[in-house]
């Protein structure tokens, strides 16, 4: 049975995560990267809930809740950064912002 197999959910989560990785690697637009980051976060959440379903206790879901809240915070700060980038560089392509280079 597929529905009773944890590995199915984990697989879907892993694929989604890797799609996110692909997106981050290939996107140049900062918002695009942010979107793919969301994809990865979502994959992680799915992963967590799946594990929670297949084990006892409430902590799995509570933890996911925290993770979602964190993701939201991350998006907020990320978007602020994107807007800052737009303001300082007139461009939100990430390879333009290279001040961090050593």
């Amino acid at each position, binding site marked *: *049975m*597929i*529905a*009773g197999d*944890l*590995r*199915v*959910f984990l*697989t*879907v989560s*892993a694929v*989604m*995560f*890797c*799609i*996110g990785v*692909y*997106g981050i*690697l*290939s*996107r*140049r*637009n900062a*918002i*695009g990267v942010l*979107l*793919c980051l*969301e*994809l990865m976060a*979502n994959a992680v*959440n*799915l992963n967590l*809930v*799946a594990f*929670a*379903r*297949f084990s*006892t206790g*409430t902590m*799995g*879901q*509570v933890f*996911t*809740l*925290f993770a*979602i*809240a964190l*993701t*939201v*915070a991350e*998006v*907020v*700060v990320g*978007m*602020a950064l*994107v*807007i*800052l980038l*737009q303001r300082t560089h007139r461009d939100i*392509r990430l390879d333009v912002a290279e001040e961090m280079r050593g």
Partner: protein
Amino acid sequence: MIGTLFLLALLSLVLLCSVQVARCPDLVHSVLWLAVTLLSTACVLVWLAAPFLAGIQIVLYTGGVITLMLFGVMLTHRDATAVVPNPIQRPAVALVAAVTLLAILLAAIWRTPELAPAAMSPQHEVTTLQIGQVLLAEQLLAFEVLSVLLLAAMVGAIVLSRRKDP
């Protein structure tokens, strides 16, 4: 049986939409595909007996995050043409990296005997009441810390995105 098929369809939808998010040339479309991904993930969460989390997912992500993203796109592309470009660079290399990663993950998932159905089977369901009790009793500190973090993120976002010092 129908349930299984429905689940399969749902999971396929999640993956397909994810692919669209990653490869769609128009940024606005990407955002919308993400919305669909998140919604369908919420459905999977329901399937995984986490209705409360599904609700949170819909309200926060699909409601809040997507709106925020769209705002972001609008704010950064004020010369609103039809298509917001979302160019792609070196897709082949990125694909190789992603596939390698996937291979490792899949190998880890499918070759670990502890994850097989024999060892892992669905346990009892968790009610929203239980979540609430855990949040406000055992994990109160973490809960409060998280609220402080959210506040900090908010303040940080405001500080970062405001105009130069008056």
